[in-house]
């Protein structure tokens, strides 16, 4: 079983339905993009997958390697192999990047096993260098005072250090300039592997020039209305989301 499967997922918040019979399958080794206009439920999907408690799951399943993770605690879902790169990463004052990632790594080790500090720092620095992050950042408090680009790079650094099987990236490109976009994309592309699956949630097509997806899905009104290859993203870019509404919204009624 090597897939991320979302089956007939219905999610609401405060009585309002957001995801409506949402279905998506991502086989390991593939990169899928999820696009759509604002307010259509893309971030909700990401948060529900990660186990955020604000949302009510009315019905449906999210299966990682055949196991339903809905209802599990966020840390259990993380340990099952899911990583969410946040759209708005949180600041944790007083907790350095180095210590945070180390704590996250330590949490996955069996009781009694300790992280080898020397190996850890070697790996951390190598990955920071690859992301063109100044090594001095290790001592800085997580995300505190970071620019948008620095926060996103920090998300990719964490993803790279935790080596998840399923990476969900929630609008990672928002707030990035061209250079940061390129660096972040390189980081992601380096992680592409046969045993890893990516779900890239994005508003704009630009990111997908750098991280070329295997499949592009378009979301509208809480569900996927159309799927295609990387070219679909370019078509969306030129025709806009109204085109989707007209062409495909009717089919979901």
């Amino acid at each position, binding site marked *: 079983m090597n897939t991320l499967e979302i089956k007939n997922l219905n999610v609401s918040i405060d009585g309002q339905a957001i995801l409506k019979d949402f279905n998506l399958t991502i086989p390991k080794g593939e990169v899928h993009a999820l696009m759509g206009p604002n307010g259509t439920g893309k971030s909700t999907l990401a948060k529900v997958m*990660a186990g955020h408690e604000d949302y009510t799951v009315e019905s449906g399943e999210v299966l990682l390697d055949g196991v339903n993770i809905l209802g599990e605690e966020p*840390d259990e879902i*993380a*340990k099952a192999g899911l990583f969410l790169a*946040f759209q708005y*990463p*949180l600041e944790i004052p*007083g907790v350095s990047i180095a*210590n945070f990632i180390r704590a*996250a790594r330590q949490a996955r080790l069996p009781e009694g096993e300790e992280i080898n500090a020397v190996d850890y720092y070697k790996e951390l620095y190598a990955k920071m260098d690859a992301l063109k992050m100044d090594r001095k950042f290790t001592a800085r408090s997580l995300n505190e005072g970071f620019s948008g680009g620095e926060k996103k790079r920090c998300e990719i650094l964490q993803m790279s250090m935790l080596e998840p099987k399923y990476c969900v990236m929630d609008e990672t490109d928002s707030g990035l300039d061209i250079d940061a976009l390129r660096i972040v994309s390189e980081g992601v592309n380096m992680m592409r592997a046969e045993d890893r699956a990516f779900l890239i949630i994005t508003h704009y097509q630009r990111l997908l020039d750098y991280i070329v997806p295997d499949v592009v899905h378009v979301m509208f009104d809480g569900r996927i209305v159309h799927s295609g290859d990387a070219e679909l993203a370019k078509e969306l870019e030129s025709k806009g989301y109204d085109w989707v509404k007209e062409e495909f919204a009717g089919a979901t009624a």
Partner: protein
Amino acid sequence: MSDTDIQDEAINVDTEKGNFKYPENYEFDAGVGLNEDTVKYISEVKKEAPWILDFRLKALEIFNKKPMPTKWADQDLDNIKFDEIRYYLSKGQQPARSWDDVPDDVKETFERLGIPEQERKFLAGVEAQFDSEASYSRMKEDLEKEGVIFVGSSEGLEKYPEIFKPYFGKVIPTSDNKFSALNSATFSGGSFIYVPKGVKLKQPLQAYFRINAENFGQFERTLIIADEDSEITYMEGCTAPKFETATLHSAVVELVALKNAKIQYITVQNWSSNVFNLVTKRGMADEGAEVKWIDCNIGSRLTMKYPGVVLKGKGARGEVLSIALANDGQHQDTGAKMMHLADNTTSNIISKSISIGEGRSTYRGQVHMPKHLKNCKNNTECDALLINTNSRTDTYPAITTRGQNNTVQHEASVSKVSAEQIFYMMQRGLSEGEAMSLAVNGFVNELMKAFPMEYSVELKRLIDMEMEGSVG
């Protein structure tokens, strides 16, 4: 593990280290309650000079006259039953110089708390007090040769009155408050230290206090005099087993830093949750001298402690760094006092408090700069962290600044660890408890660096244990 399991574990675990006691067989016992006879008994047992008995009796009078400060302080103070407390208990021991000479049960107590080990590793000297008297006191020979004096209060006043008497009761006068008066009447134990001119101690001196008997009040008295150009770091840790009845710890600590001397006083307080911890601590800094209080309060039912510095000489410096953690049923009422009495003096107060569950943290700060002074500076930062919606924090700053070119800066903040921060950390694989601990440790991180490493490791462990039961 069920929620109650986690709660129980957290409640027991944090005092487990200190939660043990030995049968009481005391040779000297002043009985229950406090009156003139109690005070006379204490003085007799210690074979004190008449002036000390006199000092005690006058203090008793003042104690009886003064009202409880419940107008402004926590009304829980009214639950202290002075007639039911035992004011003096000892096994008649002289402090042993060699660990082997210490009675077994006392030795075991301190070994369980890790004292001899620590001494070997990094301390210059240790005094361990068990109920009213010191059971163990040792100082490295080379310090003795340099003329450093490190003895208990009774020995200090008896053997070296010319050194200690001039300052005894001067930094904190008996009448300062009801509890300094109580201590002045019943004091026993504590450390009297003198560091000669120019001697800079490289390793800290340490004391450890323990309450073993039920319904016992502990009243240690400490006086540290650092002569000109000397330096000393002193550390104190305290603990008591968990009794049903409330116990009282009312200590007085006076520090005297003469010209260009430095005194650093570090406390990690982890009394069990039934102890009333009411302490008066004050330092006096002469010209160019520095007094620094590093204070961490994790235990006790009610702590009232406002370490202060009187900046008596030009260019003197005072600092209070304080971490307080209040859990269910606890009130940490702490703060600082800085009295500027000379030009070019500076003071720095950094207070970080954490309130968990129904815990309550209070900051009271007093900064005083009179009109005739110039170029004095104070910086105060008090930050509070609330963990649950029913935790409470209060800040009562009392700042008086007059005069030319004096600066006072006061910053206060209250924050919560937000659900979104917890979710973010959990998404990286940390459990809710681990995430909370990490956020709390981050909050106190800057201050933790001021503690010697061994203490900060222990502190982090104590904080983590308190956090375990706090989530959900």
